């Protein structure tokens, strides 16, 4: 079994772990622990697992992904970014560009800006409607709008790319 070093970002911050995976068993070494942690997952339904941790049973739903993995416990749904640790540098170079993804499935009601516009962090870019509620999708950074990937009236899925921005202060 080959071990892989990844950078994983939990709600309280990023950490690097080394892990090995064999079928439904994951063994990882967190630098904060002396001992590696072994988790054995039992599949209940596609993507739904029972796992025992410290003697206590948990049920989780896992939605695989390349950049981020959705993990849902009985309490909460998380989007957890995971990337290869050694690729960090490479990823950073592209970090001048940020693509905003749809936080939920819905309908693009209105696009409020145009490609080429300069926007401030927090400024509304477009309006998405789902379940009779309209939500503003705002700029995560101050920068220039490179491109909209959707148009008004279009249905989008959760995670779909909406708009790409380039950071203003980016020296790239």
């Amino acid at each position: 079994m080959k071990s892989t070093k990844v950078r994983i970002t939990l709600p309280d911050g990023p950490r690097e772990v080394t892990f090995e995976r064999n079928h439904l068993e994951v063994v990882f070494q967190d630098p904060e622990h002396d001992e590696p942690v072994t988790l054995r997952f039992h599949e209940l339904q596609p993507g739904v697992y029972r796992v025992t941790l410290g003697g206590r049973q948990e049920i989780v739903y896992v939605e695989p992904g390349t950049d981020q993995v959705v993990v849902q416990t009985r309490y909460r749904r998380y989007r957890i970014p995971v990337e290869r640790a050694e690729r960090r540098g490479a990823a950073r170079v592209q970090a001048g560009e940020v693509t905003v993804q749809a936080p939920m499935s819905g309908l693009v009601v209105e696009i409020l800006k145009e490609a080429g516009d300069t926007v401030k962090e927090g400024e509304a870019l477009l309006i998405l409607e789902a379940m009779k509620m309209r939500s503003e999708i705002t700029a995560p950074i101050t920068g220039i709008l490179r491109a909209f990937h959707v148009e008004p009236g279009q249905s989008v899925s959760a995670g779909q790319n909406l708009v790409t921005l380039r950071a203003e202060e980016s020296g790239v």
Partner: protein
Amino acid sequence: MEFQRVLIANRGEIAVRIARTLRELGIQSVAVYSEADRQALHVLTADYAVPIGPAESSQSYLNMDRLIQAARETGAQAIHPGYGFLSENAEFARRVQEAGLVFIGPNPEAMEVTGDKLQARQRAMKAGVPVIPGTTEGLTDAREALEAARQIGFPVLLKAAMGGGGKGMRIVWNEEEFPSLFTLASQEAEAAFGDGRLYVEKFLENPRHVEIQILVDHHGNGVYIGERECSVQRRHQKVIEETPSPVVDDRLRQEMGEAAVALALETGYTNAGTVEFLVDSDGRFYFLEVNARLQVEHPITEMRFGLDLVEQQLRIAMGQKLPFDQLNLVGLGHAIEARIYAEDPFQNYLPSPGIIRYLVEPGGPGIRVDSGIYQGFEVPVYYDPILSKLIAWGETREQALRRLHRALEEYLILGLQTNIPLHLAVLQDPRFRSGEYDTGLLQDFQLEPRQDPPDLLIGAALLGWADRRAVAQPLAETSARTGRGISTWRALYFPGKVRGI
């Protein structure tokens, strides 16, 4: 008249709930569904199911002609409108009648009166029901308005006579700021509606929201069936309801109940209805509005009084007399309901549609679940985010709260985020637990997330990351089966920027 078949002009949990009572009474149910609801639970549980159009409500669940046609095609004698959609639409009720069918709800004339805020207020005054003190006509003269405000007592609320949407609306706390705020609001109203006249009304700060359930038959008999405390609201949307209200005593209950029935008789109201009141911190109550339909939160009344409100609605609509009078209606214990919404309390309550990947519903002593979902169901993006209602009954409020908490912990819905964490937090809130809360409870409510074990999150994330290629294909196929134009999962698993592995 006896119904053999009833069409339910609604969807989701309420359509399922109505079909259950129909089945108990030996009446066949006809479900209707939009293109987005082909696989919805209400369709699968009814005796007949009729497609009524595209996903957009305006072309399906709000399409009067199509609904009446569906009732005729299937030979239904009556239409139950549920809540929302066309349930309070007098025109629909009238057209149903004109088609020779029975509308299971109030008569259209009463719906027109109760649906008009000003008319309803006037009728309430006529019936001797307290209304929020205020001027009965719009004013343009600031001095005249100030005099009215003095009589009403500060703080007051200025409202545009022709208004809506908050334009021309101001809270005025004292006499000193009254003239300038009046001028400002009047100008705003003039600009927005071409009419600068303003009403002056008493402003109730964070009142409690308490409503009375009524039933009125076609033989002149009306009863009230206790109250429901609905002050746990977020942006005017009810979240938790309970009965009895912790602040309503027997005397207040009787006063409010008799006022509600008096209003119903004054307006010629029939069938089930709810009269909403605001209750101030001194225990005074004021008429707010009539909800001329079955309420979302009706099950707590059913649990406490041991009756089925949908059954009573059907019996009234069939022309039967109420089987009980006021003295027979004695509530027992305490009931509480938590509305389960597909929304994310950790992301500013963004809607969270999606596929239910795993579902374990709670049960056991004192628990009732009125649900519109099942495992594998894709919750559509087109409609209200309500998934189900979790109702708990206990001999005491404390036991009901304990049971609700236990059932919320038991309730496992994976695949989309629900507001269960908000319910758990409210149940822990000292103000809620003491019963000393009002409609301000959820303003600036801080939801402190419970910590999930980091090792669990890390292990699960690593499993998902390691599966990033293997799992993409089969799940994409799953979505193809749902037959929607756009595959949610393809977009998720193949984002625009796929990195080298």
